[in-house]
């Protein structure tokens, strides 16, 4: 079937061809590392070899011209090798300590601050937003840019008590790390989907549309002979899963879409087990292009944490120690009924003790 020259199922290129010679030579032999300064790591091998890594910010949404700039830099200082991190930073590795400062200088000139190592705020894991996704309740790249412009000092230093990881997702699908981040910024819809009764029957399979709703809010209906569905609005909590399954149920609503803020999640097993992020602010308006309410809220949380937490306490560990009551007090955030869980595990989040601080 496939034309003779068309190859399939070959998988990605082998990683070995992508490795700097010193990385290849010391593969599996690294002994320890030092965080030399913000954005610079030194890995020392059992062979005595030393590898320097310079980590720089990236907007993730990058043009091929920018990638070519990175390549030029890598060709100049890194024998033609570079990599990207799991948080979308770009890393330049060299076996020559003398290259470190020039790399930093050139990156700065290109507008790519160096940092994100150790007890810093690293790059924000994020998603498509208005740049590419039909589901989005907010933009992603723009929110990230606005937020990191405010937090840049924490990227280029290692002065926080611990790692602080921020994530942005533009809808409840949470394509990324929002559910387990120190601070998470989540685009939300706040109104039920509208229904395009004319198109629904053609575009969507009714049974799977009905089944898509976690709250059983969607029911089959016939209008003027046309098969469609209706939504019991009192049951809907705006998750948007119906829209994912059925294009004739758009849920975007410019007046009401916005952002919620979540805190205290983590992924690493270091000290405390991984934790989910918990609701801090149920709603902030979409206020492009710089979302001042959002960046202000995030900054407030970061600064309250920075002042109050003990060394090596992630945001969630800090809150566990002081308690949520004190978190709301210290940040000055309002506590509302929305903070009280009412989903499937709700009963396990109630305070079933007399432990209260006055």
């Amino acid at each position, binding site marked *: 079937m496939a034309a003779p*020259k068309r*190859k*399939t199922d*070959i*998988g*990605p*290129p*082998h*990683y070995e061809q*992508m490795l700097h010679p010193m990385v290849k030579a010391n593969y*599996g032999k690294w002994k*320890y*590392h030092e965080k030399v300064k913000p954005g610079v790591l030194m890995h020392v091998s059992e062979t005595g070899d030393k590898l320097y890594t310079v980590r720089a*910010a990236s*907007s*993730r*949404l*990058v*043009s*091929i011209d920018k*990638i070519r700039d*990175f390549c030029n830099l890598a060709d100049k200082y890194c024998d*033609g*090798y*570079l990599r990207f991190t*799991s948080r979308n930073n*770009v890393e330049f590795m060299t076996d020559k300590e003398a290259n470190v400062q020039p790399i930093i200088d050139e990156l700065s000139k290109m507008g790519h*601050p160096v940092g994100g190592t150790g007890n810093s705020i690293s790059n924000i894991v994020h998603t498509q937003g208005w*740049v*590419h*996704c039909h589901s*989005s309740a907010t*933009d992603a790249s*723009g929110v990230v*840019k*606005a937020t990191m*412009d405010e937090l*840049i000092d924490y990227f280029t230093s290692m002065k926080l008590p611990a790692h602080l990881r921020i994530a942005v997702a533009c809808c*409840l*699908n*949470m394509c990324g*790390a929002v*559910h*387990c981040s120190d601070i998470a910024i989540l685009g939300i819809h706040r109104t039920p989907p509208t229904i395009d009764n004319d198109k629904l029957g053609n575009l969507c399979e009714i049974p799977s549309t009905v089944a*898509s709703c*976690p709250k059983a809010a969607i029911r089959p209906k016939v209008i003027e002979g046309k098969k469609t569905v209706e939504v019991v609005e009192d049951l809907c909590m705006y998750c948007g*899963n119906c829209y994912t399954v059925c294009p004739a149920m758009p849920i*975007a609503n*410019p007046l009401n879409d916005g952002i919620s803020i979540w805190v205290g999640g983590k*992924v*690493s*097993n*270091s*000290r405390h087990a991984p934790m*989910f992020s918990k609701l801090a602010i149920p709603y902030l308006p*979409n206020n*492009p*292009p710089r979302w001042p309410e959002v960046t202000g809220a995030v900054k407030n949380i970061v600064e309250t944490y920075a002042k109050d937490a003990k060394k*090596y306490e992630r945001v969630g560990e800090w809150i566990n120690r002081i308690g949520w009551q004190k978190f709301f007090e210290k940040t000055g955030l309002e506590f509302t009924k929305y903070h009280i869980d009412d*989903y499937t595990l709700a009963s396990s989040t109630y305070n079933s003790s007399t432990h209260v601080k006055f």
Partner: protein
Amino acid sequence: MSDTPMIDQLETGPWPSFIKDIKRMAAKNAMCKDLLGLLEMSYKDKRTHWKHGGIVGVRGYGGGIIGRYSDSPEKFPNVSHFHTVRVNQPSAWFYNTGALRYLCDLWEKHGSGLTNLHGSTGDFVMLGTTTDQLEPIFTDLSEHGWDLGGSGSDVRTPSCCNGMARCEFACYDTMNLCYDLTNEYQDELHRPAFPYKFKFKMSGCPNDCVASIARSDCSIIGTWRDDIQQDNAAVTEYAKGGKVDIANDVVAKCPTGCMSWDGSKLSIDNKNCNRCMHCINVMPKALRPGKDKGAMILLGAKAPIVQGALLSSVIVPFIKMEPPYEEFKDLIRRIWEFWDEHGENRERIGEMIVRIGKGNFVEEIGLEPLPAMIKEPRSNPYIFYEEYFEEE
């Protein structure tokens, strides 16, 4: 005045600007120009102008392309189609500049010239092209040794931390496993046939630098079984330099309380260590994972839609992880067989495990129930006793 006053404001400030990057391309690419217009419209209207994606793809593949159409083709004809191509990245996102330049050149020819480095799942994401470009892109890619990643109800592009390539903590070779699995499961990756998506993520140690425990159906996380390797001279060095306050920053933060420090000697009760990595993280020169290394397998992480988010949970506390990884692949085969048979449509494996009960699941895939699989035993008395006595 500029056509795009709102997004223009995102060109200033210290953080790298994606708008600058789009503008840079817009100078030579009409798609990018229209994308700026469409985006400005979104910023003004506070809503997306993308429509629900249609199904597009390349011949013989069910995944790898995300279809995308705008709702304003008249105003912005060059982004009326704007599909995404997910190119399977090399293990741990290492590149040589030749490889990267090749991808850039290809994308210059066939698409917008915009990318995500990388997508949240891990792919080299090429952002925006038209339907007619898909086949040419694929043919070119595969001729040059590249392939597409996953999308839809298939194995999604596996990803891994840099592991042994640049990290002393790696307890198994994440990059090799990632490459091996990706190739082993090419068919499952390219031709969606599962109840829903299935993600593999691999971290070399419990620091979990690819967030596998939160973001993958199957999380493979390095660990060790024996004692932490301890270099007492290096401990002293950390302590002396005043670099590390061992009592407060290490011992007091050990979650199991299994360490002690008398001011000169550090002792670890390894039988009670739960391998959290904290002490090792703080003093990497003095402490290292043990020598009997391998991985832990956890299953079930996912985002909240529909029943609430799940983290992966332990299914195999320890397994040796060496090529050709037969024992592991055998386990995956059993897991998929069971999911195939019992999973409902759009039900992730984690949701299925919760629905049928982890005890039942573990038994069905041929594993022993172990205390390591749980945080705590049940507190409700609703036990389905399977064995009982019959009247003789």
